[in-house]
């Protein structure tokens, strides 16, 4: 399958290793990955902060970039939730019937990475080896937006030598929420402190998620506190093999 990677703007700049991991996993499974360099940002930050008019050209650009793609795979549950939950409505507000038709045809072909592996490719064991004790934080958009359910767990359980520890109160938001973490920094930090406490309680070496934006937030506190606990995107765990450890 020719898989078009939408890496997400923040991964592109801050977490390029996640994009590389997705490429590695998909190629290992025998698929071809393409990266359309015209891609930038899905518009989530603008949209969620209320800058809806400013997110419109970004929707248009996304659609123009990926209109003829066979499938689009993105290692970011919040971006895929933006596309799936808000693009159809936003396109209609833009009063462009052609765009609406394009969006309606494209959106069902856009998948979050773990969902793509399990639901679209039907793969749970990607041949990964990861000899570490990890816990998994279900990011809000993967949990309540995309309703990924047990998909990420099924993938992680098939990773050889990986020890998966259940995260207490896992469904609680980490407090990131995009610009919420800035506009309501104190409340955001209070939420983060509880999330970090539960992560430390698991005595895991790493916290895994489907979304680097939440992980960036969690990492920020884990590192500031010198806890020694790291964060990694699920793609990076799945990319690791015994011969070639990824992280």
């Amino acid at each position, binding site marked *: 399958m020719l898989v078009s990677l939408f890496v997400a703007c923040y991964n592109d*700049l801050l977490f*390029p290793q996640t994009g590389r991991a997705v490429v590695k996993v998909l190629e290992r499974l025998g698929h071809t990955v393409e*990266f359309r360099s015209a891609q930038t940002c899905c518009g989530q930050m603008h949209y969620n902060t209320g800058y809806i008019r400013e997110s419109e050209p*970004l929707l248009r650009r996304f659609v123009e970039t990926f209109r003829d793609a066979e499938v689009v795979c993105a290692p970011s549950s919040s971006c895929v939730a933006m596309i799936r939950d808000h693009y159809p409505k936003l396109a209609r507000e833009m009063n462009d019937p052609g765009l609406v038709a394009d969006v309606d045809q494209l959106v069902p072909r856009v998948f979050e990475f773990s969902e793509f592996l399990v639901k679209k490719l039907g793969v749970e064991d990607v041949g990964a080896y990861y000899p570490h004790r990890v816990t998994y934080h279900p990011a809000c958009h993967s949990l*309540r937006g995309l309703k990924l359910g047990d998909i990420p767990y099924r993938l992680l359980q098939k990773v050889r030598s990986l020890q998966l520890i259940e995260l207490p109160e896992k*469904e609680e938001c980490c407090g990131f929420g995009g610009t*919420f973490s800035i506009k309501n920094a104190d409340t955001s*930090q209070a939420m983060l402190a509880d999330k970090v406490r539960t992560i430390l309680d698991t005595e895991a070496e790493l916290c895994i998620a489907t979304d680097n934006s939440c992980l960036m937030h969690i990492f*920020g506190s884990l590192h*500031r506190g010198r806890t020694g606990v790291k964060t990694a995107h699920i793609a990076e765990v799945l990319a690791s093999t015994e011969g070639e450890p990824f992280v």
Partner: protein
Amino acid sequence: MSIRIGKAAEAPPFQEAARHALEDSQLRHNMRHATHVIRNKRNNIVGELPDWEQLRAAASAAKAHVMRYLDLYLEQFERNVIKAGGHVHWASDADEARQIIRDLVEQHGGKEVIKVKTMTSEEIELNPELAAHGITPYETDLAELIIQLGEDFSSHFVVPALHINHLQIRQIFKRKMPLEQMGLSDLGEKPPELAEAARRYLREKFLRVKIGVSGANFAIAETGSLVVVESEGNGRMCLTLPDVLITLVGIEKVVPTFQDLEVFFNMLARSATGERMSPYVSVWTAVNPNDGPKEFHVVLLDNGRTRVLEDEEGRQALHCIRCAACLNACPVYGRTGGHAYGAVYPGPIGAILMPQLQALEHSQSLPYASSLCGACYEACPVKINIPEVLIHLRSKLVQGKQEHIGGKLSRENIGMKMMSRVFQSESRLRRAHKLARLGQGPFKADGVVSSMPGFSAWTRSRDLPAIPKQSFREWWRDRGRQKRA
């Protein structure tokens, strides 16, 4: 007409109030404990119903239908109340509602009223109005009584005293109740002892006071009946013992038929208190000879609701049945408590209701008081898409700001506009990447940025990962070159 709800217009912005609330260790403990207890009870009891999602869909559809034909159902309700011997008053705002109720009490020479817990009464600030005119209101719901005696404010609309614990309640009772007159020599710390004190304090008022004031959970158009759902039985007392009953109800509370209650009764108690059904459900239709009050008045309150109805996207906030499941589920509310919202209706539903009921400018911080985690939407029995409405209100605020030069020149607006432009061109994005990498240079150490001008809201408590040497797109380009070579 500029509608203001309670003291919300004078309240400090959410983030400021929240900062103080977050430092109150007693409050944090009380909030965490109480919201987790109710949330777990709710999850267990909702989990019993295999058709919960169908019930949600049915409830949502029923409410959407009522909003579409609200005028017709309200007129039908009015006709049926009058036919049954009751009186109907229409109040367009809080001032009118207060005046109507005060006039009614004064016409009957009342100096006291007993009250069933009612949010609409909080909304119109009825108690201070009555008190200012020599009429004493007695709250009879246990939690509302605690709030009233403690001269506090409600922080939750199902359990208003959620933010205080039993030891704090004991102190309030000891200070404010005539314990000796009530036949109590001392007051213990156990909840049953506190409940007994409240019972003795209230029983005497139920039997003496001749005017009752209530709200209502539902108003039934086809019969002109009203419904109060409660846990303690104090409501039943207030609705049946007085000679005169005055019910203040928001116009959005009307449902077409008695049959419509089936769905809501299946959901309300489960969502609100984690019970299969509420211990007391009172349904009454105006007056009956030799049974209950001799005179009945219903005051239908608009107070901004018809304006909310005009907004196709925002109007779903009017579907709310006040179960407060969204409050108990909300990670923000669970930490800051209700007072930080500076609102009669706190929590996620308050964050979309308050800015719409009153002018948006009076509650600009509330639409941002959410991480958009979606727990509220998931918990809502009538499927109000709270995150979607929050974003809608944020966009209204942004558009309002962009109309003024100050808003246009704000750091946020300039930043957002610039980023939107950067993301509209690949070459601009590449340049922005280089610039960001250069800009962080002096602040980078050991792979992180721990402080950087302009980012202090983040870096005060959190590190930022440093920007790596190579972006993904640069890596991809190099990889392509190597492959070709």
